[in-house]
């Protein structure tokens, strides 16, 4: 075991899979020589060579397109898209090629591609450096979408994603790379070293995709969250003394509906929390699933606490961010219903 922040844990995952499987290559803008703008790929080029950890030009469409070709020929590429906001130039390659090639070749060509990308706000990035586009990818059949919330999970999930034979979009909540963020933006941030999930095995382990984790047991209401929002949910529940059961989905596609169902049937109340905009966000899918599965157990309508339906603002970031105040009001509403 050693203490790792999320960046170190993700780096460790790369080191391990690249050591085990020389079909794994990692590429992206400033990924090789420089080790990634967030340092996730630091040291890989030195250790594995320029043919396995390398820089690309600024060309997201080309990067992902090339990964599709590599994967079709048996490699296992891991591409970094520097910020999730830059993934749109590659959407065509992700949707029309990576997600579909297996299906239209009747399984001849699996697509073992991992596309990693730092995502989410809380860093004053404005509209081109803060977005949470996970619902766009969740909507595409043929893709998996993973979002870790701790160093421990980040490593185990990334290893599983790289070893998975389907294309995986792996969003890393950059707000919590260095420490869990509980939504109280005016309080000093605490580092990962103070959090138990920074205890990370140095060796190999994989966390299966599609398995949620109950990170805080409770009886009164179920909170469904992922990424940064897991910490906001837990901290707010503790702060207000709400007996909330917080579920970290970890993978949104495939989603662990059994764990969700079991919890909601127990609590009778369900609140969905995400940073992305509200309309057609992943919370809408979760609300639909919950009412399909748990309708007769529900004692209140499913609540959604989300970002507003606006572009991510430069100023007013904390008015946008669905933090403890909005979550607290939603707790009150759902518990009194």
């Amino acid at each position: 075991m050693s203490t790792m922040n999320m960046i170190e844990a993700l780096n460790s995952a790369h080191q391990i899979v690249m050591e085990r499987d020389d079909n794994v290559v990692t590429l992206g803008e400033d990924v090789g020589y420089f080790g990634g703008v967030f340092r996730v790929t630091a040291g890989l080029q030195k250790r594995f060579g320029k043919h396995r950890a390398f820089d690309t030009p600024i060309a997201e469409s080309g990067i992902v397109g090339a990964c599709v070709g590599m994967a079709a020929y048996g490699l296992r590429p891991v591409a970094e898209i520097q910020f999730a906001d830059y993934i749109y130039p590659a959407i065509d390659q992700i949707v029309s090629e990576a997600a579909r090639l297996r299906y239209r070749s009747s399984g001849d060509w699996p697509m073992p591609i991992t596309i990693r990308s730092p995502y989410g706000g809380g860093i004053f990035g404005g509209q081109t450096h803060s977005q949470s586009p996970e619902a766009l990818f969740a909507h595409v059949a043929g893709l998996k979408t993973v979002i870790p919330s701790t160093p421990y999970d980040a490593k185990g999930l990334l290893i599983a994603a790289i070893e998975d034979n389907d294309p995986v979009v792996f969003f890393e909540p950059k707000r919590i790379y260095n420490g869990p963020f509980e939504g109280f933006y005016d309080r000093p941030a605490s580092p990962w070293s103070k959090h138990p999930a920074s205890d990370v095995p140095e060796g190999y382990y994989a966390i299966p995709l599609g398995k949620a984790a109950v990170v805080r047991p409770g009886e009164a209401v179920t909170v469904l969250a992922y990424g940064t929002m897991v910490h906001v949910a837990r901290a707010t529940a503790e702060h207000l003394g709400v007996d909330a059961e917080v579920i970290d989905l970890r993978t949104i596609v495939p989603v662990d509906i059994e764990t969700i169902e079991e919890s909601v049937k127990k609590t009778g109340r369900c609140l969905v929390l995400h940073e992305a905009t509200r309309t057609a966000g992943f919370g809408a899918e979760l609300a639909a699933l919950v009412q399909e599965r748990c309708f007769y157990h529900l004692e209140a309508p499913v609540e959604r606490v989300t970002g507003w339906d606006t572009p991510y603002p430069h100023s007013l970031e904390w008015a946008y961010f669905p933090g403890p105040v909005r979550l607290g009001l939603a707790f009150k509403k759902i518990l009194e219903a």
Partner: protein
Amino acid sequence: MAQAAPEFPPPPDQRPDHGRPPEPTRHPAERTELLDFYRQMLLIRRFEERAGQLYGLGLIGGFCHLYIGQEAVAVGLQSALNGSLDSVITGYRDHGHMLAYGISPDVIMAELTGRAAGIAGGKGGSMHMFSVPHRFYGGHGIVGAQVSLGTGLAFAHKYRSDGGLCLSYFGDGAANQGQVYESFNMAELWGLPIIYAIENNQYAMGTSVNRASAEDQLYRRGESFRIPGLQVDGMDVLAVRGAATTALEWVRGGNGPIILELKTYRYRGHSMSDPAKYRSRDEVQAVREKSDPIERAKRDLEGLGLGEAELKAIDREIREAVAHAADFAEQSPEPDPAELYTDVLVGQD
């Protein structure tokens, strides 16, 4: 009144060979004009230094890309434009382009600090600024996007037959985006009035141009589209201005697009958080000492008889303007939270 249809060029195989633009010459230094360039470059330099300080103090958050070292490019190019006709568009390293346009430093700095009085109401920030009266179309955070958008602006100039052209800036890193080449093809095919200005400051974040570009002589990037290109010393404002004149004559003469590669250098990190491990201090220092665009203009001015006292007076005047902008940016209120919802869609404010 219906407007006359714009003239589009015949298909490439039926076009007369329009040759190449002449080699540009250095703009003749004339005292008042050069003094004006000097003043603008110095304003950009001091403004950016101050922005860097405000960032350090936590008054500016998030991303902030300084233009220090590249001043001669925006000042030299924009001085040649017709401000009431031509349009300009650029990437996220945009403070200098706005200042070179004569936009008030106050509203630019207030945008950096995210205040309501900022030029985008505090909603855009450093990378996303616009000015309708100055025909400045942004300020774009997505690398390469402005090249296609600029191509559309050029189409609109042609459609309206308004005699204007678009100046579309992008970096050496952006020059590797696919949409740049889609745009080049359309611009030449349709004979659009556009200057593609590649600011080659030799780095795209931590990647030097020759580590990312198969053809690192970027002025040649238009060759397979039949777009001529010129390589220009971007550290000499008069050389830039001279090249701008040549490019404008080419485009206004109905010859379609042109590429200018401006060889320049950024002194600071890519943005405020840049460990700068990809180049040595010595490299940066050598450029500062040998090719600084402001020092160069100063020497030229001294050659034209400008005295120490006049230079000092300019320096003072600019320091005051920048101090004023910083105070304004610090004291203006934050936007009202209700502003979060405005301008998402028309008619829903």
